[in-house]
């Protein structure tokens, strides 16, 4: 079993990128029998959650609402 063949799909699956159902099933089947990839899948899932939390925090704390002072009005 070569873990490398699952790496890209594993990352896509963990970060929520849509992938084909068959590829997702293959990843999940591999993760079920490979402890190293299961650990990586869990780490990537946690990272996805943390990045989502950062994105939500910045979206609502003013980072996205800065008034940049563009002079309204077209030339």
């Amino acid at each position, binding site marked *: 079993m070569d873990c490398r063949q699952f790496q890209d799909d594993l990352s896509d699956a963990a970060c929520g990128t849509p992938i084909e159902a068959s590829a997702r099933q293959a990843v999940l089947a591999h993760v079920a029998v490979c402890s190293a990839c299961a650990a990586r899948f869990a780490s*990537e899932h946690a990272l996805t959650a943390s990045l989502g939390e950062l994105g939500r925090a910045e979206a609502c704390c003013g980072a996205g609402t800065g008034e*940049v002072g563009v002079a309204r009005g077209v030339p």
Partner: protein
Amino acid sequence: MAIDASTTDEVLLIRLSAGDEAAFEALYDRRQPAIYRYALRMCGSEPIAEDVTQDVFMALMRDAAKFDGSKGTVGGYLFGMARHRVLRHLQRGKSFVAMNDALDDDARADAANVDTAADPLEALARTRTIESVRQAVLSLPLHYREVVVLCSLEEMNYAEAAEALGCAIGTVRSRLHRAREMLVERLDAIRVDGQVPARTPAVRGT
């Protein structure tokens, strides 16, 4: 014709080209927050992010007629302009201020306390987690940082990010995967050592 949520960016840009001020305001209100966040996350500096955002929309007002819809979307066009300006700032070496310093304590606390104000310990833990991730993202080499900002924080798909970055979809995917590996390593290091591994200078990795 009235402008509402169904009015596309492309229509707004055509109207802007014809001197329609309301079209500019609608486009600005719709797109400014994401452009500002992108610049802030890339530079880690609020003043630079404001400069970049202002410059992008000034250029849009000036050159709206230059947009070619056959080459991509208005969103991609705006991110492309923002990226060009961010890279220029980073290459000048003026703007690499840690976001840790750029955002004041109140802003960070507000960010972490939005949903957990009733539980101070949970809010504190959340603040630390968010700050760790923020610093880890800022520590990435530039071309890895930008795919994380676009795909993971702005929630663009690979095609949208590829358009904004002017590269192939496969390049975005492989960079994102590598960037995520680096983030996992750096966050593990933070958990062990309590600090982000040595920051990669902003201009490296371009």
